[in-house]
């Protein structure tokens, strides 16, 4: 069994907020332990997709360094035909819908 570390956009914004050293501490911790953070293609697009966000100190995230140094990698797309993947997705959506009161369609859009 392997463990994958999955990071959402918020992790990188959090590390850029107020204390820029946080990003360097994250980088150091990951490189020392040899762990990579996997991000969805969607997260990759969010991090780099909005020039307007550059106006914000916390929107200006040095994530490209992570790709160059190999501690951030874009995860492969999930294969929904795989029964394990589709079962986990369905359960996750049902859980989110129950907790938030959003419809199943909405949970698809926000995952």
């Amino acid at each position, binding site marked *: 069994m392997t463990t994958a570390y999955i990071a959402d956009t918020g992790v990188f914004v959090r590390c850029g907020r107020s204390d820029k050293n946080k990003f360097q501490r994250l980088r150091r911790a990951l490189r020392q332990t040899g762990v990579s953070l996997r991000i969805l293609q969607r997260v990759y697009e*969010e991090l780099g997709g909005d020039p*307007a*966000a550059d*106006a*914000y*100190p916390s929107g200006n995230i040095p994530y490209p360094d992570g790709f160059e140094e190999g501690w951030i990698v874009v995860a492969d797309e999930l294969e929904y035909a795989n029964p394990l993947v589709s079962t986990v997705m369905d359960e996750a959506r049902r859980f989110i819908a129950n907790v938030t009161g959003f419809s199943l369609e909405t949970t698809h*859009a*926000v995952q």
Partner: protein
Amino acid sequence: MAKSSRTGRLPIQQLQTVSDLLETPTLARLYAHILQHGPVTVSEIVDKLGIPQGTAYDYVQNLETAGLVEQTHDQRPYEYDAESISLTLSTDSETQTIRPALIAAVARRDEDEDIDVYIERHGFDGLAVALEYAYEYVDGTVNHRIAARELDLSPLEAEVILQALEPVASEYADAAA
């Protein structure tokens, strides 16, 4: 005393006070501090907020005249407590209520440039709406993607402002409930 706190509740006068609070982040910080931590003395305010003593006295006096702050201790050192604010403004199509949490969010713009940039781009109305989502974000019922879609922002900009407003939303969660 009764007279001043009464005049503070007159809508148009309150509008002027609220306008001062929105335009003067240090005044907003002082008001938010008294509201959350009062009764407090002016020297406690000076120590906590690191603002000049003269400014602190002037601002407390301004807020007292406007009926938002009241002296609660008759002998020196004088102590002050604050009245919660709630001013609802309506135009033909929109209604917005200004509450202490919005004042507290504006108060952070000097120390948090993300909030400052957001106000420059989306105004106080935009900030007030983002704050509503920040409560749900702190609660875990909304993420940056839902907020982005509904506020018509990019997901990154939504995440930035939600995280910036997180301390205010956490502090004022009870008042919003």
